[in-house]
């Protein structure tokens, strides 16, 4: 009996705690919590896909588009590393976009926090060339690539 009551108390406490913490986490995702990274916003109205989707799947999107670009020469799709770099450029003290050497770099803000090292910038430019900005980017495509990719990503999970 005592054990049953204990279980009930534990369950209630967990539910209460979850109720308290969940809104806090929601707020944290919006960038309120001081311990979470705050990646630089892009220059346009919105990202090439929803922020939540990009947060989870940008690596798969980049990986797939990379092969299409290198091997098939398709350069118009929206998940382009060049596009990310151009749109999310962060200016340093000298008013020039910072490279991946700087912890302020868009990619590094999250990757440092998550302790995930990327080697993209051993070959790729980590800052836009002069004159490249959001204006130089292709408009958000109407093709449902994000949805196709989302289905693909889900199909990978066991």
């Amino acid at each position, binding site marked *: 009996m005592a054990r049953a009551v204990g279980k009930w108390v534990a369950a209630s406490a967990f539910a209460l705690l979850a109720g308290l913490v969940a809104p806090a986490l929601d707020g944290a995702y919006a960038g309120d919590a001081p311990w979470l990274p705050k990646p630089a916003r892009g220059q346009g109205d919105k990202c090439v896909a929803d922020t939540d989707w990009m947060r989870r799947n940008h690596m798969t999107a980049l990986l797939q588009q*990379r092969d299409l670009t*290198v*091997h*098939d*020469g*398709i*350069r*118009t*799709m929206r998940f382009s590393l*060049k596009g990310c*770099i*151009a749109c999310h450029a962060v200016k340093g003290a000298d008013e020039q976009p910072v*490279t991946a050497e700087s912890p302020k770099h868009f990619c590094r803000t999250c990757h440092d926090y998550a302790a995930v090292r990327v080697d993209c910038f*051993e*070959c*790729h*430019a980590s800052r*836009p*060339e002069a004159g*490249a900005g959001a204006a130089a980017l292709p408009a958000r495509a109407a093709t449902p690539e994000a949805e196709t990719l989302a289905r693909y990503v889900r199909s990978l999970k066991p």
Partner: protein
Amino acid sequence: MSCGSKSGAGCASGKGCGCAGGQTVDAARRDFLHGAAASAVTLLAAGVTLYSFGPAPAAARAPGERASSSVRYGLLIDAAKCGDGCNECVTACQTENGWRDSGHPQTDAQWIRKLTVKNPKNGATFSLPMMCQHCTDAPCVDVCPTGASFRRADGIVLVDKHTCIGCRYCMMACPYKARSFVHEPLTDQKAHAPRGKGTVESCTLCVHRVDAGRIPACVEACNDTGGGAMLFGDLNDPNSEIAKRIATYRTTRIRADLGCDPGVYYRNI
């Protein structure tokens, strides 16, 4: 019809002995197969497009469309117009793709170089640019253990640096010494020409420009400020300027005897 092999027995079969006789047989057989495939298209036409067969006339590729094997990009270089001291193509390539001399000539990357060739018997010299010859049967593609060295559908031979492990087999296999290995860490690469330490690289025929419907930087520079010796175009399109000139004039391909079918043609060498 001699293939130069001492045994001479391998030729009659026509099974890839690399000699002229074998190639003729293979080409005839291939043409026959292409014809058969073309008739198959007419039979299976409902919803089926076999676009890779037959010499279809090339149209400008729409943005977002895959590189097509109906196109074969190539160059025609007229050595008579190539100035002896002119280096415009090399400089343009360096500017476009971001490679440069770092004072280590033994190991510096070199996508294109000028050669001066001298006939020792009569002292006659001429100069020409040498770069990746974008072969159909590229030895660099054959030997690559990871599939990083590949030939795009439209004939441009590239290195997928995501897959390259830097073994440099391709550099040894290339008869033209066209490839380089990056020995030092690099910074501030061009956004359209990623390159980095530990990978092999070579002329890309300015693939980023070609995909945008432009011509390679070396050809543009040669036409603008050089001798106008270089011409870029689709070898498969009989109406293209390059195909017309190749059909009209006597052209040479360097080490054509190797049977790699290079995409770079030279005149007056």
